[in-house]
């Protein structure tokens, strides 16, 4: 009597899916005109699409400043670096991505190996960004750096004899060291730099020494390690500079108490310099709006944007002479930077992970 019903599910499902697809199209329609009709004049300056692994809220101000300066709108997806790389690869030629922005040199290297980027020549970028912080063919550029430094409890630890990364493995610090997981990208890049500086065997021995000095199993983020020093759980910690700078700038009395008790050391000042990692970006090979993307990269290298990295997220600018405009970074002071080529971190990364695993660095 009701012959309609038994077939109802398939059409209902189809309608739902179609509706979703349409919804998807309507959401997607904004970036597309770019690809279809590049000749058409864009009264608003067009759109660039950024896939960003940076997770800092201050970036939105950065994008807004770019839009204000150029009229080009910015659309973004934020996510984990490798997931974004995978997404670009799967999207292939149709990828709407113009720019991939990551927080680690190793990821830039891997994206480059996977063929994500196109080579760019820009006299602005080449002039402003030091050559060890960019790809030789202009496939990616570093726009800010962060140093990985040593923190210590000023009430208990005498920092003489704690001046190099290598010193962290010294048995006299047994039970004192707090550092995050061995799969953390910042530790991997540090290990990669040690492999390049001291050789694999030496670096792996170092990692064993570090593991033997752990105050507790690796856990939490960089800020947690610094806080653990202030709480007295450990005497020594390792962390990126911007986390400490953020505590220095905080109004919270608890954070101020942390800063009060914790001292910092820029390691290896007498030899190769302190390890720094970069946050950088490149233009995607299939970028629908490569011209706009290049404009964005050049904007990032402008003194104004460079200062934003320092002021907004406590990172170090890469362009010579860019103002810091950040009291915390000014207090931390100038330091000698390890001039190692950032590609090394990428090349050595898998090796570094294996060595840390073997050393029992969880």
């Amino acid at each position: 009597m009701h012959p309609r019903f038994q077939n109802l599910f398939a059409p209902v499902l189809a309608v739902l899916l179609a509706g979703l697809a349409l919804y998807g199209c309507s959401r997607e329609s904004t970036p597309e005109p770019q690809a279809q009709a590049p000749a058409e004049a864009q009264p608003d300056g067009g759109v660039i699409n950024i896939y960003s692994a940076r997770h800092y809220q201050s970036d939105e101000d950065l994008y807004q400043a770019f839009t204000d300066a150029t009229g080009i709108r910015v659309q973004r997806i934020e996510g984990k670096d490798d997931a974004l790389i995978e997404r670009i690869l799967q999207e292939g030629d149709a990828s709407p991505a113009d720019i991939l922005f990551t927080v680690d040199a190793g990821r830039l290297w891997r994206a480059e190996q996977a063929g994500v980027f196109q080579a760019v020549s820009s006299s602005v970028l080449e002039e402003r960004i030091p050559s060890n912080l960019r790809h030789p063919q202009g496939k990616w550029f570093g726009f800010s750096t962060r140093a990985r430094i040593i923190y210590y409890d000023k009430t208990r630890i005498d920092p003489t004899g704690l001046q190099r990364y290598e010193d962290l493995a010294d048995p006299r610090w047994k039970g004192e060291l707090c550092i995050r997981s061995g799969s953390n990208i910042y530790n991997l890049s540090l290990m990669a730099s040690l492999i390049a500086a001291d050789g694999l065997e030496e670096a792996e021995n170092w990692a064993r020494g570090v593991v033997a000095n752990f105050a507790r199993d690796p856990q939490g983020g960089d800020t947690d390690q610094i806080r653990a020093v202030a709480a007295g759980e450990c005497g020594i910690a390792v962390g990126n500079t911007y986390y400490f700078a953020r505590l220095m700038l905080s109004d919270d009395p608890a954070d101020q108490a942390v800063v009060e008790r914790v001292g910092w050391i820029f390691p290896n000042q007498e030899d190769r310099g302190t390890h720094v990692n970069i946050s950088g970006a490149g233009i995607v090979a299939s970028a629908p709006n490569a011209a706009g993307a290049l404009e964005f990269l050049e904007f990032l290298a402008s003194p104004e944007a460079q200062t934003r990295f320092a002021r907004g997220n406590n990172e170090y600018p890469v362009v010579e002479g860019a103002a810091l405009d950040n009291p915390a970074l000014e207090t931390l002071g100038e330091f000698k930077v390890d001039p190692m080529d950032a590609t090394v971190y990428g090349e050595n990364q898998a090796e570094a992970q294996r060595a840390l695993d073997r050393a029992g660095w969880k």
Partner: protein
Amino acid sequence: MSGNRRLLSLPLTALLVAGLVALPVLTVALHVLLPDEGAWRHIVDVLLPDYLRNTMLLVAGTAVGVIAFGLTTAWLVSVCRFPGRRLFEWALVLPLAFPAYVIAYTYTDLLQVSGPVQTWIREITGWSAREYWFPPIRSLGGAIAMLSLVLYPYVYLLGRAAFVQQSSGVLEAARTLGCGPWRGFFRVALPMARPALVAGLLLALMETLADFGTVAYFGVPVFTTGIYRAWFSLGDPVSAAKLSAMLLAFVLVLVALERWNRGAMRFHQVGAPAAQRKPYQLRGWRALLAVLACMVPLGFGFVLPAARLAWLSWVGGDAQFGTRYLGLLWNSLSLAAVSAVIAVVAAVIVGYGLRLRPGPLMRGAHRIAGMGYAIPGSVIAVGVLIPLAAADQGLRGLLASWFGIEVGLLLTGGILGLVFAYVVRFLAVSLQSVDAGLARITPAMDDAARALGDGPGRTLRRVHLPILRVNLLTAGLIVFVDVMKELPATLILRPFDFDTLAVQAYKLAADERLAEASTASLAIVVAGLIPVILLARQVSQPAKRRERSEARGLMQATTPA
């Protein structure tokens, strides 16, 4: 012949849906056959023993935890009477609104060395941090505690529904035969509720296996964190897929254990549900114990962390709170609603398909369709991305060559891919609920309806769906809440400028701004509360409604077409 078509169409649709859902799972599984990029040897030698050990401990510990919390409370509130029972009855579901990673952030903030509890201990005693022992929150034990606290409502919900729906006659019979409350529980109620309890346990354990947020934050090396390490640090997606496949094997073992345990038993309800069952009245210390047993999971699973989050966001929350949050809320809610509806429809199709055609093909499809729940969201996302992107490329080429139009990425560019991933991931949840409901309906009812001339579709609509109403609602609500909480797949697959509450919370937490992340975390919990409270209401007064709907179902089934 139309009669033939009728018989075929529904099972065929079921196979189609199951196949679609299985696609990402199979995509991942097929990676196993590819040669790996050198990391596999290293993983097997150095890391795998740890992954196996920790994963098994995590699963075993969480199983004990969710049963201890879920089963005890379900039994207490269903058949006993004690002060506060009415409140507990619905409030015990509330921890379900907490994503495991949010409760992990909250307890870490409270209990870590620099947190308020330990700071207070040091101030009171004058000890330094190295002079006393405090249970480390970031540990395997901590992860078990966190997961047990937020996952026990699965066991509670399904267990409670089962206890309430048990035919009163059976328990009454046990009582007249001299069974006390304890024996009545172990000999009669528990065995009868077993399918529901095991279904709840299975959901909780599958979610445990798929959890990434908590174990990663606590630094516990298990399979999910191993998959990330293999893929992202060792740069070897094939090894990551092999680990995923081993994780799938874990799930299969769990599912097989459940089937083996249940054996050939079937549990259909024949009598009326326990509308006027005489409850056990608890007094004195027994009542106190019952109240405590309910307070512990509710207090630690909801009240305390919610209060802490509220406090954190009050004193130093997200500076961006405001209209931006309306957008985030809308994105979260609409995604969750759309996914929930699709997941329930798909579950009915697949579940009913199996009932109609219980052949090996259908059974296999049914089982694979329910496996996505145990796969970490990020793995599903990639499993979705690979076939969908290929389809996208094909579609794009086709449209370009046939019609000369350039359409971009139809499937992966919008929320379609994301919703697909959610359905793959959460179909198991809705399927469990629908299956549990269908299993309760005796096949005699199908036969009666069919004998009276109804086709399978009409039988479904007039007999099963009315009876299943509660199950469908439960299924939809659980999927809704799960989607609200989902993070990794959302991160990877969402369209441009499309943030959800979970994404916002993650961005801040990943940047080690826990206090600021508290606002978004609290918003997820609050938004999740509405469906969870609906669920709870469903649970607290199901007996009458169910009786009515079952009676109506029966009547409709027996009304000649």
